[in-house]
């Protein structure tokens, strides 16, 4: 969904802020995140706790792949709070700041 388009960057183009970045996450059998590989350490760190989670479902009038269907998690990882979401259309994980 968020693949690089490989187009040449134009200076006139508007740049979206807070774009999600792909991240590796290990899920348990119930589909909750248990380990997260952060970019900084490049190692899997355990999720200490799930602080919050919410479901965002929008643009349902578009076709299946273009609708927005995400589950957001606010996690405590290595004593830091990060926000991740799982794209339910593609089953990929992304990190995103609020």
């Amino acid at each position, binding site marked *: 969904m968020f693949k690089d388009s490989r187009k040449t960057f134009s*200076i006139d183009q*508007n740049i979206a802020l807070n774009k999600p970045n792909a991240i590796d996450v290990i899920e348990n059998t119930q589909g909750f995140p248990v380990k997260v590989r952060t970019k900084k350490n490049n190692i899997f760190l355990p999720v200490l706790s799930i602080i919050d989670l919410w479901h*965002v479902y929008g643009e349902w009038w578009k076709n299946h792949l273009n609708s927005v269907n995400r589950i957001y998690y606010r996690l405590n990882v290595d004593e830091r709070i990060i926000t991740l979401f799982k794209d339910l259309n593609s089953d990929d994980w992304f990190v*995103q*700041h*609020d």
Partner: protein
Amino acid sequence: MIACLLITHFYIKNEFARNPRLKGRPCVVVSEEKNDLVVIDKSSEAANIKLGMSYQSAISIYKDLVVLEADYDMYEDVHHNHMVIMNNICPKVSSDDLGIIMLDITGLEMLYSGMNNLKKVLISSVDKEFNPRLGISDSSFFSYIGALQCPPNGCMEILDNFKLMPEIIPDMLPIKPGNKLKLKELGISNLKQLSNWEMSYLQVQFGIQEGKKIWELSQGIDSNLFRHELIEPSLKKNIDVDEYFSTKQSILLAISYGLDDLLRNPSFRNRSARSISLNFRTVDKQFWRKKINFKEPLFMKSKIMFIISNVLETVEMPGPVERIIIELTGLTNDFGIQKSMFLSSKKRDNLLENIKQLETRLGTKVPIYQVKEIEPCSKIPERRSALTRILP
């Protein structure tokens, strides 16, 4: 009516005011002219010394002669102060030379309840040790002659210019030095002797302009118009050191101390300065001057010092400095700065202007963006705001 306030021996009187111990001793003030030190003023005790005499000849006459080097900065300061004082009394003031101040006092006697009171005010406004003399006449030249004739701290009002003619010697005339000598060679010792001459004779001898001038003066006419000067109020501070300032840091420190003094001056209270003049004199007597005009009148030391240090950073001093003169000029009654109501729009205009200039210089578009809200309430974070180019 023109009044002339004259201070004779202005240089030596300034030296006495600076160092009263010199009074009663033979003193001369010397100045460098054509690579030679020449006497330009003397005290009454050094009667045998003539003005224009070389320094070596002067010291051979008096063994205990005190020789003082002319300090024109100080003389000009004192003269400027006198001009400011006179300008407070009379709005039309002019000066051609140090120690001579001309005032247009027409109608001023009504403000001071009579001419006698006005004369007293004019004379008493200058320190008594300067022994000012006041001459009053219908023209500048004859009021100057009147001032020359009157006793110290006295006044002479000239009602008939002709009566003065026998007293006016060629040296007093405002003409070229060569023509003064020529008058003497013709056996003319005073202006009365010329009163019967025709203008054409004088024009043949002294040229059309000078001949006419001499003839007019001999007839009691002074055709020179009075041109008054605009006296700009200023505050000055001289900083002298026994050694010298060799680094910019030490110069800045000295300026900082000098500014402290100037800004504490009661006459600067509730005022601001539009510009500052920095005069430097190096050890080898070179002069260097820098005038800095401020964008807006300033009264805060930190802002003034910031500007000075920025200016001094880029200049190269001609040598070690032994004297710094700081002068705050263009004093205004502004105290405080009114802020613009539309500060943000002004800032934006400035920013757009700077970006345009940058693009012109680089010849391409520059990636300078601003954060713009697109859907601030969207549940999807990447939809809420975006970076857009400031320039369309």
